[in-house]
């Protein structure tokens, strides 16, 4: 174990999690949603959002060919518009990591692999370990693990802590994102608790959802998680990354999320080292808005490649 925590330490850590007031959270969110994005700052925001995307395909029907297409798109978002960044990472199942790694070459784009019996997490711990090791051995730069939501809801925080810490131990050089699947958790208090727990257990990033369950990355959930990251930073000086995934499909939402990060955490988090969007359809909306800002005209969706 990298960090050793006794169960009483874990209980103490959870007990310290502040309560979250839902109404207050909604008010704060409403304020962010009245912000207006214009001109050069909008263009800067759109490009920033593009550079933070984990371009994702997580389907049973994924094939190497589909993954290769996605990897090309990751490097060439819209070649007609010069000066666009590449996305941050491509996110795939462990079986597709090797293909993605090959296709991305030395582009600088990371390969993220989901693991630990994504999306349900309902597998024996040994299986989760093998799942993760397989992804790492095939070259995954980042591991997106899921927590055992059932054990969390049952109050077995020690289990969750051990699970995260054990996977973290495997990720010697890879960065670990911990997915909570907040759509299956009961309240914002629970979201805050799991955020605090995952961070002390070694998460490099905390991530809202698998994308398989609705609701996913809602503003209240994201704001609650950002609060946990902020408090951890204020206590320890250590930065933790944030990845909302699922449900952020429009540019406007993405820009509002970025502004929330800026206001709650600060400018330092506004890079793809510390902030990611887990998304598949967001990229094209950002591209359409970007073109609109440059040319003053909306183009048809037909002009933007789907893969």
């Amino acid at each position, binding site marked *: 174990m990298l960090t050793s925590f006794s169960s009483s330490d874990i209980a103490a850590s959870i007990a310290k999690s*502040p*309560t979250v007031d839902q109404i207050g959270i909604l*008010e704060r969110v409403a304020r962010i949603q009245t912000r207006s*994005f214009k001109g050069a700052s909008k263009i800067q925001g759109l490009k*920033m959002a593009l550079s933070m995307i984990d371009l994702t395909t997580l389907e049973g029907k994924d094939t190497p060919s589909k993954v290769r297409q996605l990897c090309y798109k990751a490097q060439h978002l819209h070649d007609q518009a010069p000066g666009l960044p590449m996305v941050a990472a491509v996110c795939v199942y462990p079986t597709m990591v090797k293909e993605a790694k090959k296709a991305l070459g030395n582009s600088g784009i990371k390969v993220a692999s989901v693991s630990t019996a994504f999306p349900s997490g309902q597998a024996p711990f040994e299986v989760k370990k093998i799942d993760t090791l397989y992804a790492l051995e095939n070259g995954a730069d980042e591991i997106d693990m899921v927590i055992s939501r059932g054990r969390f809801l049952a109050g077995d925080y020690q289990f969750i802590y051990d699970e995260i810490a054990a996977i973290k131990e495997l990720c010697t050089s890879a960065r670990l994102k911990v997915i909570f699947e907040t759509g299956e958790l009961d309240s914002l208090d629970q979201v805050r608790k799991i955020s605090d727990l995952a961070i002390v257990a070694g998460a490099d990033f905390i991530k809202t959802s698998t994308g398989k369950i609705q609701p996913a990355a809602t503003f209240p959930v994201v704001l609650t998680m950002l609060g946990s990251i902020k408090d951890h930073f*204020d206590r320890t000086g250590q930065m933790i990354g944030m990845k909302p995934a699922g449900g952020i499909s429009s540019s406007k939402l993405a820009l509002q999320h970025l502004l929330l990060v*800026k206001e709650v955490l600060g400018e330092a988090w506004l890079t793809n080292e510390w902030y990611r969007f887990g998304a598949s359809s967001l990229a094209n909306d950002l591209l359409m808005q970007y073109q609109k800002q440059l040319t003053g005209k909306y183009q048809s969706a037909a002009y933007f490649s789907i893969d």
Partner: protein
Amino acid sequence: MSQKNWNLEPSLESAALLKLQDQYELFIDGKWQAPLSKKYFDSINPSDESKLAKIAWANEADTDVAVKAARTAYENVWSKLSGAQRGKYLFRIARLMQEQAKELAILETLDGGKPIRESRDVDIPLACNHFFYYAGWADKLQEAFAGQQISSLGVAAQITPWNFPLLMLAWKVAPALACGNTVVLKPAETTSLTALKFAEICQQAGLPAGVVNIVTGYGDTGAALVAHTDIDKIAFTGSTAVGKQIQKACLGTSKKLTLELGGKSANIILEDAPIDQAVEGVINAIFFNQGHVCCAGSRLYVQESIAAQVLAKLKFRLQSIYVGNPLDKNTDIGAINSKKQLETIERYIKLGIAEGGQIYQPTCELPSKGYYCKPTLFTDVAQSATIAQEEIFGPVLTIQTFRTMEEVIQKANNSPYGLAAGVWTDKGSRIFGLSQQLRAGVVWANTYNKFDPASPFGGYKESGFGREGGRHGLSAYLKFSN
């Protein structure tokens, strides 16, 4: 990977929609009438010190004409209408206000300096809702006061403040008309324009002449109105000093009086509070409308065990508050209403430093023209310090710590005012316990500055008397015979 900072660009609401006149007359007996005083004053845009319009300055003779018009309209028309007919006019006014909401919001922001986000999302919608709410009561007054003999009062003189010009007009005019009274309203001299726009709306609604009269001017106009012998009711919202003068002027008369005055409201954070939301709530409580709010949460009390954390979070949050052009949709804190008020606030800030308080202001840049003040925190403030006792009416928060519940209740109540209070805690029992012991007209729990037409509002002690809003608000405009 480093990059340049990401800052929002201004996103200005266009004022081109407005059709401002160069000069405004008095609105008396349904017509625009030049003042007998022959005097006018300038209305200034506090965000850039430009002149918006020339406005008539009513003298005693003008107020007399207005009161006579209101009396005639009361005797001949308004008191003879049924409640349902009065309600019809009020509904019509409410709908017209809604239709012209954007115009009203821009006008309120230009004239008063408040952020467009607030005039658009708070002031104007709430003002409309007050008219809708009291329109609904107009034909149900007997049900509101079952078993009691009720009748209208007659002519009401109403004097409104500059912090929520149209909203305070709505708080006063809507219940007065619903109860069958006619009104003479004097808006604050720095913010007359939405009241004058409201006069146009009364015309568009076909409201009978003389039911609503608007006389603009300074304090002398208000004094003449208060002193008029044919007034049945005075409703005033404003400073405690002026409130006391009005109360003196009413001695020995049968004029019915409601006063909604100043405040120095306590906002209390207990150690079990949802801290991030409490911090956000404290920000909204004191910096809403630049702190020009009678119930602003201007005295913060934080339990000692969490004080350092709360203070650090407040300071951090202040860095992301946008201060600037009120017409910018991203602005959180706009312009101070007038040069005079800015000077008052600056005087208090200097005094706070002289009294030994530790000042904190964020590093934001203020516009070079116009009246602006940075959001300001004071720590190490004594309960006996002037800035902790007197109403500043600006974006200045004093912060004190406490150890026990008993201590904070004593300190919160240790004020000549008693308008509002806020309590932040996760425990329901503490909410109920504290709200019973805090001597304040409103106690908000885990929120602040929430208003609704159905909820009565008003103060204890030197914060005034009488209630506005809700069913309670009706009784201020009715005579009870038995």
